[in-house]
């Protein structure tokens, strides 16, 4: 599994000001918005320097090798604009989704480009997706980076490492 970007800098200590209950509630909310295809609410969680990344097993430097998703804030916006048209057929009709998060770990602090320190959190997930072509179970581990901005938690980074990212995978039209 890929950890290249994470290895460029070592994690610092867990920064102050992140309550475990509040963080868990934030992650569950993000998961619910994604499950319910609530694109506006989901998009509003992101910071301006957002990175939404789904690597494959061969991904190393993500700007030079292929990933399933490697979206900055602008591309997240494009992806959501496309799906909001209702004619993003890979997600129209929308998938029926529910996911479980578990094994939530506070991993440490990660310096961000704004001079602050983001909280890095890891969690395992399973998503059951139901579409016309059948059901599919997606599973893996997500690394999040959370930042407090104007008093609220925001998502700066979400890296989703699928357990089967070295194998062919079906269309991934929903927000994972």
């Amino acid at each position, binding site marked *: 599994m890929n950890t290249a970007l994470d290895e460029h800098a070592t994690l610092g200590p867990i920064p102050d000001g992140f309550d475990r209950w509040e963080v868990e509630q934030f992650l569950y909310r993000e998961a619910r918005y994604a499950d319910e295809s609530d694109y506006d609410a989901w998009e509003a969680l992101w910071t301006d320097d957002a990175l939404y990344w*789904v690597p*494959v*097993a*061969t*991904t190393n430097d993500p*700007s*030079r*090798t*292929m*990933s*399933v*998703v*490697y979206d900055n804030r602008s*591309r997240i916006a*494009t*992806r959501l*604009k*496309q*799906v909001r*048209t*209702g*004619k*993003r*057929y*890979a997600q129209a009709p929308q998938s029926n989704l529910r996911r479980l998060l578990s094994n939530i770990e506070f991993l440490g602090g990660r310096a961000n480009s704004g001079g602050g320190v983001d909280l890095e959190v890891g969690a395992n997930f399973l998503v059951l997706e139901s579409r*016309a*072509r059948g059901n599919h179970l997606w599973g893996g581990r997500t690394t999040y980076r959370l930042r407090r901005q104007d008093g609220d938690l925001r998502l700066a980074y979400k890296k989703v490492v699928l357990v089967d990212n*070295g*194998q*062919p*995978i*079906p*269309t*991934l*039209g929903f927000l994972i």
Partner: protein
Amino acid sequence: MTSLIEPAAATGSPFDKLIKRDKVHGSLYTDSALFAEELRRIWYRTWVFVGHESEVAQPGDYVRKKLGLQDVIMTRDRDGELHLLLNRCAHRGNQVCDDAQGNSSTFRCPYHGWTYRNNGELVGFPFFKGYGQRKLDLNLGQVPRMDTYRGFVFGSFAADGPGLVEHLGAAAGEIDRLAQLSPEGAVELTVGWLQHQTRANWKLLAENETDGYHPQFVHGSIFGVTGSPIGALYSDTSTAVTRDLGQGHSENDLRPEFRKFAEPMRWFGTTEARVPNYVAAMRERYGEEAEKIMIEGGPHVMIFPNLFIAEIQVFNIQPVAVGECIQYSTAVQLVGAAELNKRMVSQCMGSAGPAGMLLADDTEMYERNQLGLECLTPEWLDVRRGLNREHVDENGFTVGGATDETGMRGFWSQYKTLMEAEL
């Protein structure tokens, strides 16, 4: 459902009943007996795209590939020679290679320790007394013929037959067009492949790759939100053409549209001012010809049966079953074009693969098409579009409009020829 492949009647081929000039029978996409015949007559016979030399750049490099259902190890031996080895121990049939890629001079079967050099030669086996000798003439299988064109590696399971250049025919010129986008005249495929599982018959993909009729509909959502000019290339008034290149190969030739604007790098969605080093290197290399190359851009060509080059992206289609295939996709890297290469990766990730904003919608169409074909009426899929207006160009190729099904008809003609050929 019973198979529609019946013994050839004295009156002609069974495919005469399934493939007409203007329509093809639905069972061609759903009949598993026919799929088995396709493996035998197409995938395990004609030249099939496997990978690119740049994926195994160094001696000892190897990467696992598919050729039809067969697991193939593409290796480069210590002398720099390429091999397409079959991943099957000559002893009991176990897979000798389990990593997707790596560097190794040998492959050791985990079952009984038989060890092969990366040219396929058996170099040793434990407890030789049980064989009464230290040497056995049991090597790894190889794809009988392997050849490359500008680094694109093809394999053919037929021991003899037309050579690769003959198979590629006019499509070779499209690979040349891709290569000449590099100031060094060379492309690499070194950024890794996305693997997209697709629950549809492989032929639906091959037909779609040069179908200029669908983009405005299937891709309207992304063209609309990004203001992309691509949709116009495939409009009813586009001057682009669809060309049957012969032997099942076809292209959407977009050059007429780009020539109208005559702006270097427009094909890549940029301007020459934004990629000055690339433009300078191209002029240095190609002189006056550089303007033409940079205005006309890359090819959009489907090379029978499984290589699709879409300007900056390369796709490898491999069948799994009658209703399933895998699409492998990667970004082209142009040697000597650092200003373009990162952006090609970014554009390719945005459009291709399981979450791609273009290809995932194509894939949705393939899968719904496969489901639709479970309905047995009206039996046929129509491929007549453009028959009323296509013409033969000065090189003898049949040319239709930007949205015509000329490429599909070329595909089916080659398909029928191969399926009917005497083995």
